[in-house]
């Protein structure tokens, strides 16, 4: 086990200097290659136990979109030892809650439960890592469930469908452009073999990361992990088959009209480096830039578009950088009153041009840093979000020391760093601009 000296020191310092309090983190790796991180939180006698697999929708074979997420659903069906439909019931009968989620780069399973039940949930999670039992009976019903999930999240909502079209346009070749839940037409034909093939290839200890947060000690977690996960043989993992993204040479534009749209909006996005792919501190710089632009009503976009000029109902920007292959920087706004989408786009363009020409101020940068550091302190209040932060970071390929040194890197970002990152990313030729609009016949019908 590698216990990090710096975190012990930080924990000690916390007693005298509260603002420097940092979570107590330790880690170890089992002989079969399974990584583990322990986040101590002794406030309540509960634990959050998560297993993250380095496989997500971006790893799906062509024609099989949605298979990573569908497999996630099927993982609850039982194993050779656990009867069909009993997995979650056993967790619940032990006072626990469980669920799972799938993203572009990972699939994660978790339980929240009393601390004396950690061994039980580890045993169950280890069991289904290699021994899932998917019956043909479950295949059709669960696929229908997934299709209903897709309707709820996407098909019933024009905003959801617009977002999907936008993402598909943002990526020319990379699977990040595919919706995590999959395209409806392809979900409809997914079958048991597709799920099992994905499972056999990617569900193994050497492709998994264990995160345990809560009222535990690293030693007890390591002992339990050895017992339950340590006995599983590693597999030979497939080469990464992900497509690369070619240079973006042409600005792309989308317009979607829908009779069920009541509030029009504009979306403008650019590909950006991620925390994994950036060469220096571009990810931190872009994260700070997004705060400078929209981290509250005093920031540039809300202030100028909703207050000073009063042309937007809301306006903002975000940087999404926790991704293995690339990130995204995007702007969004909704027009107000008689303002048209092209006028709002003009205002956004003016603000971007002004940013690139005149830069950001030292004061803006200092405020953004302060806000980011405070957010990290508040984030420690939630055991599950701490577990998620570490799980996501490690699964996409960051190392613990990179997470630990996040604050130093953030504090070192200069105005020049922010502007260099902004200039590299906010290039018109690399952009996608989307309009979500009301149906034509309804235009002007109700202000």
């Amino acid at each position, binding site marked *: 086990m590698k216990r990090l000296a710096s975190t012990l020191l930080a924990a000690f310092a*916390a007693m005298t200097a509260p603002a420097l309090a940092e979570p107590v983190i330790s880690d170890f790796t089992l002989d079969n290659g399974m990584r583990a991180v322990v986040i101590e939180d002794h406030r309540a006698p509960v634990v959050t136990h998560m297993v993250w697999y380095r496989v997500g929708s971006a790893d799906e074979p062509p024609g099989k979109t949605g298979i990573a997420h569908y497999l996630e659903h099927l993982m609850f069906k039982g194993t050779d030892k656990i009867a069909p439909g009993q997995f979650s019931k056993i967790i*619940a009968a032990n006072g626990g809650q469980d669920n799972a989620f799938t993203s572009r780069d990972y699939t994660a399973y978790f339980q929240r439960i009393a601390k*004396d039940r950690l061994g039980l949930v580890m045993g169950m999670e280890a069991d289904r890592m290699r021994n899932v039992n998917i019956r043909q009976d479950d295949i059709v019903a669960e696929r229908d469930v997934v299709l*209903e999930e897709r309707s709820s999240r996407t098909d019933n909502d024009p905003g959801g469908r617009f977002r999907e079209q936008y993402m598909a346009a943002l990526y020319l070749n990379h699977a990040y452009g595919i919706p995590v839940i999959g395209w409806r037409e392809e979900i409809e034909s997914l079958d048991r073999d597709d799920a099992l093939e994905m499972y056999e290839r990617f569900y193994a200890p050497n492709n998994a990361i264990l995160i345990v947060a809560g009222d535990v000690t690293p030693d007890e977690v390591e002992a339990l992990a050895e017992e339950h996960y340590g006995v599983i043989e590693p597999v030979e993992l497939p080469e990464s088959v992900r497509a690369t993204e070619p240079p973006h040479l042409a600005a792309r534009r989308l317009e979607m009209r829908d009779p069920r749209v*009541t509030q029009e909006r504009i979306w403008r996005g650019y590909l950006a480096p991620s925390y994994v792919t950036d060469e220096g501190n571009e990810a931190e710089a872009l994260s700070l830039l997004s705060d400078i632009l929209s981290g509250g009503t005093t920031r540039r976009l809300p202030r100028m578009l909703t207050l000073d000029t009063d042309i937007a109902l809301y306006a903002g920007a975000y940087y999404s950088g926790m991704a293995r292959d690339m990130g995204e920087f995007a702007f969004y706004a909704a027009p107000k009153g008689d303002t048209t989408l092209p006028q709002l786009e003009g205002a956004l363009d003016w603000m971007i041009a002004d940013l690139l020409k005149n830069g950001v101020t030292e004061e803006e940068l200092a405020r953004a840093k302060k806000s980011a*550091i405070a957010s990290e302190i508040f984030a420690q209040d939630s055991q599950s979000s701490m577990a998620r932060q570490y799980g996501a970071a490690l699964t996409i390929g960051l190392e613990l020391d990179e997470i630990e040194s996040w604050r130093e890197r953030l504090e070192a970002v200069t105005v020049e760093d922010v502007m260099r990152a902004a200039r590299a990313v906010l290039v018109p030729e690399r952009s996608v601009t989307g309009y979500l609009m009301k149906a034509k016949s309804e235009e002007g019908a109700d202000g």
Partner: protein
Amino acid sequence: MRTLALALAASLAVVPVLAQDDASRIQEVTSPGGIVAWFVQEPAIPIVTVQIAFDGGARLDEKGKEGAVNLAAGLIEEGAGDMDNQDFAAELDDLSSGIGFSAGRDGFSVSVSSLSENIDATMDLLHVALTEPLFTDEAIERVREQVLSNLRSQEKSPQAQAGRRWYAEVFGDASYATPVAGTIETVTALTRDDILAAYGRMVAKARMKIGVVGDIEADALTALLDSTFGDLPEGESLDKTPVPVRETGGLIVIEEDVPQSAVVLGHKGILRDDPDYIPAYVMNYVLGGGGLTSRLTDEVREKNGLAYSVYSYLYPLDRAGLYMGGVATANARVAKSLELIRQEWARMAEGGLTQEELDAAKTYLTGSFALRFDSNSKITGFLVGAQSAGLPIDYIDTRNGLVEAVTLEDVSRVAERLLKPDDLFVVVVGKPEGMESADTLMEGIGG
């Protein structure tokens, strides 16, 4: 594996909820000026969270001026004392603090999060906001537009439409019939005087409950209670006489061109202080409260793949108890889903639970109680919620005993008393097949 699980469940010890010696961890503190708060001192993270609930909320809206309380709540952060909205936001930003205001059906809530080193200054800001809100015309128009935009999109959202229509039909004249945010008509017509009048009713010491968790000493806290809340108007407590709830079942179909219908259903339930509340809560966990483990999920989702989400819940408002449920399912499968839900409603009403189900429900409900207390903000929410519900300060220690005491007979009696499949009032929004598609009311469907 099922028997193994039950054996484990039976051995589940009664775990303390907060940590050791929890009974003494929740203190009731009273300031020199007589302000009472429930308080848990938690030094692990250098933050303090405060929640304040004022009894009343949208029920204080006058007829025809629905949405005034909600708009007033949204305007408090838009300027107070000598600060305009930018000054107020900048002050919060400098402190890295957050203050949020929100209106509900029965209450107006304030939630504060602050680094412990800044709690005095943060509470100062809250004091100014609560006692000297500006309600400038400019801010009123801006926030009104945001509310109206939301109301317009809800008019196209199947889920929101179904809920809105359900409450309108079930509550007729009572304030619960109208959404907290009001209607497009009422919000459009609100004047500044209406908003001031609403605000004058919202804040009253006699109807205030406070919960505080974090890194602060009791003495420092009581001083803050006086300086923040001491000069609020005294006001008076509200009449809690129950309002009439529609007693007969029915079905309304609102046509909307979406692939998936949203269904909201329910009938009369019980109030929080009803002696049957805990047995009802245990019963509902099995019927449709237990996520992936409930009977409704088993029938509608697991066996038939009809929906991603199907649920039921007790909703004890201050002046009306409701027993609610819902499902979202493809248009072709609405009728089948509703049939299964009614069937489960009836099966529970007639047969209650099996011993095995009751045992599993108890181990879940008692074992998972601790999961509600694993963060400062969750504990703060509990402290305020428990006071608003009139629960004793030692409820955290007695609650699991109340659950353990529930018998099969209790559940059968309560199920028979509460569950009335023929009285279910159902609103479907979508294009359900094989159902009356006109917006008409049919009495006594089902059974």
